[in-house]
């Protein structure tokens, strides 16, 4: 597609796009650059190239933020949430896509409505209720909260995948004597598996990065998530920005690598889920 012919327009366009690119990359570049510097050099200038590469920033960050434990907590939380969202979400999405129940409209509307509800609308009774039940500092309980919050998004995204499967396929399987459950698990699930993978990636990202719920419900030092432990490290324990940026890089690097490698899935999932909704 050609919109405009003129050469100046092209030059201007690329200049503007490049400026936006620099604005986007600048803070990330500062993060990477300063994670390698000693605190004293950062105070002189956050822009300067490291005089000495302080790789031990990473070692100290790893130990002070207790990433050995907290990263494991984050990973477990993300894994549990992914399993819960994908299993419950695909069941619901299948039924809603095929309008297999009369009340599908009400259920869809209810799920959409919960996505616009502020977390504060249910946070306080939930916290004090969980406290009574002894569910504070419980990773599984938090993954249930994430599941409730993220599954409407997952259901809406997965629904579009189920919609794309031709009805005849289902009917053929039923005629061949398959049960409803077999149709769902043996015929439908394998076909929509790319959608499930997309949902898994995005739910994993959301729960890895989540802050408000994690900081409220997981407070014991051995139950913190990586992001919350980074937050505490940067807030209280140290003013060594080299170490803080190193800790940030440890959390962000795997995310960025995964994002670059699977960019299409991430972008289509995150942008598509909120548009098609």
């Amino acid at each position: 597609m050609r919109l405009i012919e003129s050469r100046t327009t092209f030059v201007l366009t690329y200049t503007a796009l490049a400026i936006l690119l620099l604005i986007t990359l600048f803070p990330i570049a500062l993060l990477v650059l300063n994670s390698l510097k000693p605190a004293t050099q950062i105070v002189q200038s956050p822009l300067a190239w490291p005089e000495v590469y302080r790789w031990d920033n990473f070692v100290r960050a790893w130990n002070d933020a207790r990433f050995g434990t907290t990263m494991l907590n984050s990973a477990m939380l993300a894994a549990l949430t992914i399993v819960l969202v994908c299993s419950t979400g695909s069941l619901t999405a299948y039924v809603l896509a095929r309008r297999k129940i009369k009340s599908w409209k009400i259920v869809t509307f209810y799920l959409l409505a919960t996505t616009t509800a502020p977390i504060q609308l249910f946070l306080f009774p939930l916290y004090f209720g969980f406290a009574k039940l002894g569910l504070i500092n419980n990773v599984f309980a938090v993954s249930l909260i994430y599941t409730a919050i993220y599954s409407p998004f997952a259901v809406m995204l997965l629904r579009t995948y189920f919609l794309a499967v031709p009805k005849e396929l289902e009917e053929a399987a039923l005629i061949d004597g398959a049960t409803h459950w077999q149709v769902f698990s043996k015929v439908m699930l394998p076909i929509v598996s790319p959608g499930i993978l997309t949902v898994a990636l995005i739910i994993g990202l959301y729960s890895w990065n989540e802050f408000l719920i994690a900081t409220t419900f997981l407070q014991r030092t051995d139950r913190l998530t990586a992001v919350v432990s980074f937050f505490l490290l940067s807030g209280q324990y140290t003013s060594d920005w080299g170490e803080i940026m190193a800790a940030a890089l440890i959390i962000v690097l795997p995310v960025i690598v995964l994002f670059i490698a699977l960019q299409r899935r991430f972008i289509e999932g995150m942008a598509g889920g909120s548009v098609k909704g």
Partner: protein
Amino acid sequence: MHRLYLIPTLLINVAIIFIPAALTIALAFCRWDGMGIPVFVGLANFRQLLADRVFWMALGNNVIWTAIFLTVPIAMGLLAATMMLVARRGSAFFQVIYFLPMVIATAITARVWQGMIYSPLTGIAGLITRAGFPVPNPLTQTSTALYGIAVVDLWHWWGFLCVIFFAALRQVPQEQIEAARIEGASFWQMLRYVLLPGIRPTITLMMIMTIIWSFLVFDFVYILTQGGPAFSSEVLSTLAYRSAFYDLAVGKAAAVAVVISLFGLATTAVYIRLQAKEFDQ
């Protein structure tokens, strides 16, 4: 039979969101410290809010926030998306980079801006100050704290809109663009008369979502300033959070949460109205 398939999702959703939300609405009419037995006080919580200076400041900040996010990132996103359409080559690359801030945890984005850019000691602001052009830390001034936070959220957010608008723009019928081009439309005319009308439903939806999200904003405010200094950057969600967990005034927090939800509800109602109108036409 198929009804059973809905049970896991609905069960979790009702237990985590619906029941606690109903309880919150009930608590908004009670006084409760989170431990004892809630005492029914009628509209006292709401009356207290109306007389509370901080509540009005928080509400005002939410309105300012909404105004900023309805204009700046949407304009940036639209402009960049159109430019990507013009540039064609490299649009996939630009798209990935613009989107990148969205995948970084808010806590990390906040700290990078706080320490590496705004800080008068370790940040770019400090560097500029030492070069002889004093730049105060925006987060520590009552007049600028909210805008300082908004800039961070803008940086994190606008690329998402850009990607969504870009996807929508590519769906604009080729013939319309061709026709406008043959007629000799300039860039601005193309944008004004062909592209923007072509993606109007997407823009409307994003504006509605922006309003709803603007009343939910929490992370960046809580991490960067905790609503300070002197409540100058307080928003409703941080006010509710602090009331519940720091002051143990759960009734007041619930009342604030109900107010936030009312704004979301009103916005959703407007959107459904708009949709219905469009449908009639």
